[in-house]
């Protein structure tokens, strides 16, 4: 199969630009790229979830004959033998395993009314066995462990006997044994002539299992070759696109006295265990502290706990000698702590309101006399901020919906800055925004640091962490597993620290 000259334009961003992608039969075709490079969009187009703005899909038969196909829906794609396992789980947790596997393709008897539960359960059991899992098909999905749920997700696709199977980061929530099982299954499918498309962030995995590799960057195709012909360092180089250490305007900052202290931050996990366990650290004036960790390491939860979002979080937070952890979120923001959240649309923006109203939402009490909002003062601050942040808007009254991702992110940051924070907490501040906006965001971080304020930022992109941070903390399974100064940090050290407690030692 081949996807030719695919371009996909979303409002505000171009997700793919003239991308060609070949999928070889009976091979494992790996797709890599940074967050926002366009991997998921490409897969969604192949699986019929999204339609390309420009470009065609070609399907090659056994005899090598090409056929141009288009998939207006996932059903059409499934008919042609294309199955997709999504990164996120798409299961109905109150239905049982067999019902989930046969969702919308139920086996019927007595005409088309009655669902043949017994046969479904039998077939589900067979598929699960093939995946090396002894799961009772009548168990409710909510009672399964996360890893098992992922297996069910795969089984759902397998039931169609796909010719092309797309897996979008299937290992992100699996344990070591489960990853082993999955790899065995993938290899088995490959033997049977199934074409696998495998998307992953874990390059070690990619090296181990892949046959062909395709690298995407900034919506464009960068390279496509056999994995055997490419070095790991070359892959990273091509994914990132520059010498990572030189790209960002990374610079050491002069640091002063301690500004923020977090002591023994602990957040119990629902159903036992801890999301955060005794996390302590401090931030100095003028320091940028980078926090790195894998998915589920507790990064977001750490920042949110500092702001008082969770009632169950325990631990002290001190800002300039004032204790914050007994205060409400509102008070903490007033004292000078503010968070730029990870998902800007879900947690950062008010899509029903204008750019101006979004910008001043967290700081509105600064422009109030009695009950009255001083419109002139508000307008003035908003205009200053729009200028300072170089937000591209035709008018501050325009709906926030109209802005591109990068500009929306600047609005979220601007909203935070208008509260006059002393320490700025940023959760994945560059996710899903274009390169220009990225460097603007880094510029803001640097100027905060120069102004003797503190910045704490979380990122899952090592290059960002390296170039921006004065100091790097590594979080794994809710604990700090490493702390490095700018000079002593290496990629290997950080990766190792981030995997402590995960038990992942995938060898090539």
């Amino acid at each position: 199969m081949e996807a030719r000259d695919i371009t996909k334009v979303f409002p505000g961003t171009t997700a793919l630009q003239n991308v060609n992608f070949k999928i070889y039969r009976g091979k494992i075709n790996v797709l890599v790229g940074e967050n926002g490079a366009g991997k998921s969009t490409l897969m969604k187009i192949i699986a019929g979830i999204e339609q390309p703005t420009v470009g065609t899909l070609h399907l090659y038969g056994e005899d090598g004959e090409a056929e141009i196909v288009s998939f207006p829906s996932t059903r059409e794609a499934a008919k042609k033998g294309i199955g997709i396992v999504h990164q996120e789980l798409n299961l109905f947790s109150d239905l049982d395993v067999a019902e989930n596997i046969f969702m919308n393709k139920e086996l019927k008897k007595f005409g088309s009314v009655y669902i043949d539960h017994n046969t479904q359960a039998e077939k589900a059991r067979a598929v699960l066995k093939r995946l090396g899992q002894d799961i009772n098909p009548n168990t409710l999905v909510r009672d399964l462990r996360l890893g098992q749920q992922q297996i069910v997700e795969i089984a759902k696709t397998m039931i169609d006997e796909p010719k092309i199977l797309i897996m979008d980061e299937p290992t992100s929530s699996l344990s070591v044994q489960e990853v082993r099982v999955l790899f065995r299954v993938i290899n088995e499918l490959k033997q049977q002539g199934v074409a696998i498309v495998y998307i992953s962030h874990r390059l070690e995995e990619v090296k181990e299992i892949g046959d062909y590799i395709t690298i995407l960057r900034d919506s464009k195709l960068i390279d496509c070759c056999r994995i055997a012909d490419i070095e790991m360092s070359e892959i990273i180089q091509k994914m990132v696109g520059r010498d990572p250490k030189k790209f960002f305007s990374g610079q050491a900052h002069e640091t002063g006295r301690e500004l923020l202290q977090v002591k023994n931050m602990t957040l119990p996990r629902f159903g036992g265990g801890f999301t955060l366990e005794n996390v302590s650290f401090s931030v100095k004036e003028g320091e940028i502290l980078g926090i790195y960790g894998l998915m589920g390491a507790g990064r977001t939860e750490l920042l949110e706990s500092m702001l008082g979002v969770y009632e169950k979080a325990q631990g002290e937070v001190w800002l300039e000698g004032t204790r914050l952890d007994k205060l409400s979120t509102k008070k903490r923001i007033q004292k000078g702590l503010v968070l730029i959240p990870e998902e800007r649309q879900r947690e950062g923006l008010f899509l029903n309101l204008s750019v101006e109203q979004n910008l001043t939402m967290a700081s509105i009490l600064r422009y109030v006399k009695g009950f009255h909002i001083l419109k002139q003062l508000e307008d003035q601050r908003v205009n200053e901020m729009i200028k300072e942040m170089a937000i591209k808007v035709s008018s501050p009254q325009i709906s926030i919906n109209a802005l591109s991702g990068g500009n929306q992110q600047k609005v979220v940051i601007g909203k935070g800055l208008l509260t006059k924070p002393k320490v700025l907490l940023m959760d994945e501040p560059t996710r899903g925004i274009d390169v220009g906006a990225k460097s603007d965001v880094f510029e803001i971080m640097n100027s905060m640091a120069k102004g003797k304020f503190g910045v704490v930022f979380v990122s899952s992109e090592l290059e960002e962490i390296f170039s921006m941070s004065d100091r790097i903390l590594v979080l794994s399974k809710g604990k700090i597993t490493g702390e490095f100064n700018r000079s002593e940090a290496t990629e290997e050290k950080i990766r190792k620290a981030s995997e402590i407690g995960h038990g992942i030692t995938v060898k090539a």
Partner: protein
Amino acid sequence: MKKKMDTRFSVGMLILKLRTLIALFAVVLVFAFIAPNFLSVANIIAMLKHSAIWAILALGMTFVIIGGGIDLSVGSVAGLCGMLAGGLIVEGLRLPIFGIVIYFHTPMLILIVLLIGILLGAISGLFVTKLGVAPFIATLGMLYMARGFAMLRSGGKTFPNLIGKAELGNTGFPFLGAGTILGIPVVVWLAVLLAIVAAYVSKKTPLGRHVYAVGGNEDASVLSGIRVKQIKMATYMFSGFTAALVGLILASQLVASHPATGETFELTAIAAVVLGGTSLSGGRGSIPGSIVGALILGVLNDGLVMVGVSSFWQTAIKGMVVVLAVIIDQYQLKKQNEAALKEQTRSDAADPAVA
């Protein structure tokens, strides 16, 4: 970067935006032609008086709905508050422990009943914010509870003749419903006054801004330091206040309080709010819109009666109007998003750095 709007397009948008006002004029115009006495001063005042009750309820409802909730209890709360007022006038407040009965002056009585309304709203609010009950369920529960207590207050009977007694010092209650100031009913004055306050609060105060924020995005509100629970509480309390006021007005107009008063009023209030362009999913809407919505319903109601349309048809027509309003509302939203997208594409195209 200057935005250049297609003039034809923006005129279309303006018509869409002012559609409720245009609809109101259209309805008035149609009736003015059909019914000869429709535009007489007496009739206009009568219509305003009727609409004022819907408008007052709609004011409270608008805040609740913009804040992402709904209040189904307003009709029952109005009924209960009317009964409490009637009871206090006729029987007074009995304190058997001290062996005394207290009769309140009318202003004091009104104040007490309004506070009870706020309290009932606060209870709904507590269900929603502290106990996490869905607003629909919480206020549905309050609907039944308030109605039940209204019945219990008198055993289902009416408190008649709420004129008070001079020797008890509690006369004057009927003025609220029947009195006029400068020839205009007190009720209308109250509605106008409240509408001005509500419009001011919604647009010019942090509280109003926060209601829009909470209804638009609760997670983002929390992270922006907005006290989401308090804001929601405030909206339910205000809704309780408006319900109590309407209960008092109705009891005063009838000079009697009946426990079934106010049944289905909540639905009319919601209809007025929706007619005014407020989105039931929260975060979007306006006070002036709801006032116009209430006026449309009021005019439609009285107009249809004057023209001689049967009450069955009246109900059906009101239903059609509400559905039509929502369909147009959806259409406007779609057009608005398209316009925003167009503009953004234009500004992106003008700026090579984004493309």
